[in-house]
């Protein structure tokens, strides 16, 4: 699905990612853990095409294409989805309108007709139920006045409607209480299938109790310093990030 080779990224003169290698085959869930400031969000932004980052070295191949050459909206239409760590508010634009505009942009890209209004409404109402969100959220402005947890659910609602092939979840678990965490995890698990890959960024092992990763990576100081199975997360939780950092040093 996606192959990241020797990726170096800086912001201004400051090197943030210093040679990231990562291979995520279709159908797999990879977790990235790492201390604050390690460069996890930077990686998610560079993959989705946010401005302000300079790729100084390396490449990213996605479904056989040079991902970094695509405009952000083209990446999205090709199936790259980022659930933001800090979802932005868009006053005046209703949630349902954004969802429909986004879905239609994807459909247009695939050469499909615009979604029928009634079909769309039925789809959205069905999905919003699975995330245990009130239908009122559809008619509120995007994320405006949403609590932290509501914003995160809203991100997953968008993923559920847009059905991306490569889904990056940037600390989707932070700010969620345990009940919300279960609901959101169920939403993500429902999306799992052999054609879809996930890159799941988190600080906490507890998320991995709900969404079982295939591989766990540790990102520290701009590099993946250790990779392993789900047991690596448990070990990290017990011993702290210092443990890997020391091992590498």
């Amino acid at each position, binding site marked *: 699905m996606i192959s990241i080779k020797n990726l170096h990224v800086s912001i201004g003169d400051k090197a943030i990612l210093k040679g990231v290698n990562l291979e995520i085959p279709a159908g797999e869930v990879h977790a990235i853990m790492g201390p604050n400031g390690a460069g996890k969000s930077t990686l998610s932004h560079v993959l989705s*095409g946010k*401005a302000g980052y300079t790729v100084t070295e390396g490449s990213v191949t996605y479904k056989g294409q040079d991902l970094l050459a695509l405009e952000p909206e083209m990446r999205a239409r090709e199936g790259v*989805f980022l659930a933001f760590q800090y979802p*932005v508010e*868009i006053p005046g*634009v209703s949630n349902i309108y954004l969802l429909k505009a*986004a879905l239609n942009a994807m459909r247009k890209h695939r050469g499909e007709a615009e979604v029928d209004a009634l079909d769309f*409404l039925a789809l959205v109402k069905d999905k919003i139920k699975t995330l245990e969100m009130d239908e009122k959220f559809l008619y509120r402005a995007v994320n405006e006045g949403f609590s932290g947890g509501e914003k995160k659910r809203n991100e997953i609602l968008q993923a559920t409607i847009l059905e991306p092939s490569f889904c990056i979840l940037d600390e989707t678990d932070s700010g969620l209480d345990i009940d919300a965490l279960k609901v959101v995890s169920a939403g993500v698990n429902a999306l799992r299938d052999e054609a879809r890959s996930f890159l799941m960024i988190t600080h906490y092992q507890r998320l991995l109790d709900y969404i079982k990763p295939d591989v766990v990576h540790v990102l520290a100081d701009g590099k993946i310093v250790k990779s392993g199975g789900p047991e690596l997360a448990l070990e990290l939780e017990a011993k702290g990030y210092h443990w890997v950092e020391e091992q590498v040093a």
Partner: protein
Amino acid sequence: MSSSAEEIEKVIGQKYKDGFVTDIEVETFEPGLNEEIIARLSAIKGEPEFMLEYRLQAFRHWQTMKEPNWAQLKIDPIDYYSISYYSAPKKDSDKPQSLDEIDPELLETYKKLGIPLDEQERLAGVAVDAVFDSVSVATTFKGKLKDAGVIFCPISEALQEYPELVKQYLGTVVSEKDNFFATLNAAVFTDGSFVYIPKGVRCPMELSTYFRINAANTGQFERTLIIADEGSHVSYLEGCTAPMRDENQLHAAVVELVLMDNAEIKYSTVQNWYPGDENGVGGIYNFVTKRAECRGANSKVSWTQVETGSAITWKYPSCVLLGDNSVGEFYSVAVTNNCQQADTGTKMIHIGKNTRSTIISKGISAGRSQNTYRGLVKVAKSAEGARNYTQCDSLLVGDKCAAHTFPYVEVKQPSAQIEHEATTSKISEDQLFFCQQRGISPEDAVSMIVNGFCKSVFKELPMEFAVEAQALLGLSLEGYVG
């Protein structure tokens, strides 16, 4: 990758589409302004005696007046004596009686602007008065309106056919001494629309006037007078465009609305005069006095304006709420880009008991433009139970533009309730990136955000104008599901 800020400006700053010039033979007065010119103007229009008197009185008063300078505007000096005050397509002195007799060049012009004057082609339900420079060139659906008792014609024609009616109302809302530009208009106005809706009549179709400035170095001074008699109802639309020229051109209009008991007028404007180029060269000076007088009890007037054009806009559509329980509304979207300046807002004058007013103003500034909201809410001692709600929102695009808000309040009646809300926001790069990440192009994202920002005003526009207004802003119509 281009920066998001550039993307935003690109979207807002679409090229002016209506900037072409119609090549047509015209009769134009030589530049200049004096009593003799005014007399000639009055004569060429075949006006009744009282009109010439009115004009001359205004002119004499105007000569003692000074241009207002309180607005947040930088205006290059205007030489009022070097403008031509009359320009009209040359044709037989008789006006065309039927649409077939109109110069094909003119028909073509309006067609290009999206205003077909052919009654068959025109979307049913909208009658159009087309004003080209100083004259009305066509009015559609006159017959159908006449059957309903509605008078809808150029004001020059009304002066000949219904002089008593015009005399009774003209200048009674905006006096010929009101302000510098209104007084100039009273002296030299050329054409515009006249509407009379008789008692109890709901006008069977939307009425609209389409103003086009074509000639160079002329001013357009239009005059509109709408009278809604007891219990009548009308929706009136106005649109404006002009060619692209390097010189500034003056447009100083006066619009008067009169409402009797239980009458209702909905007045909508989509103003897209040429705004000048990106360096601020050229463009229309749009100095307009618009006022409605709710004379009757329970009458209701609403002004809705979408202002995207003009180099400078100076305009405060106002409501004088005389009748008890009368209602005034003002909904405005004003977009400024490049070097455009807008100083616009409204005045709500509460005199009758339990009068209510609502002001919703949305200012969008981009480029190096200046966008000012200026509003006055005045509650007289007599206006027991008066209420006003004002909401002023500004949206900034980029960081070289500015938005200003001047809400003035004068209350002499202690029971009055006045509420004011104001916000300023900015389209952020994060918002744009978020939308892009959901597959939406930056252009569509800006449209969506701007459209969302203006939604509460657009929903006040008649459907066809809403579409035009949104197209103007480069917006796609926001669909409502469910």
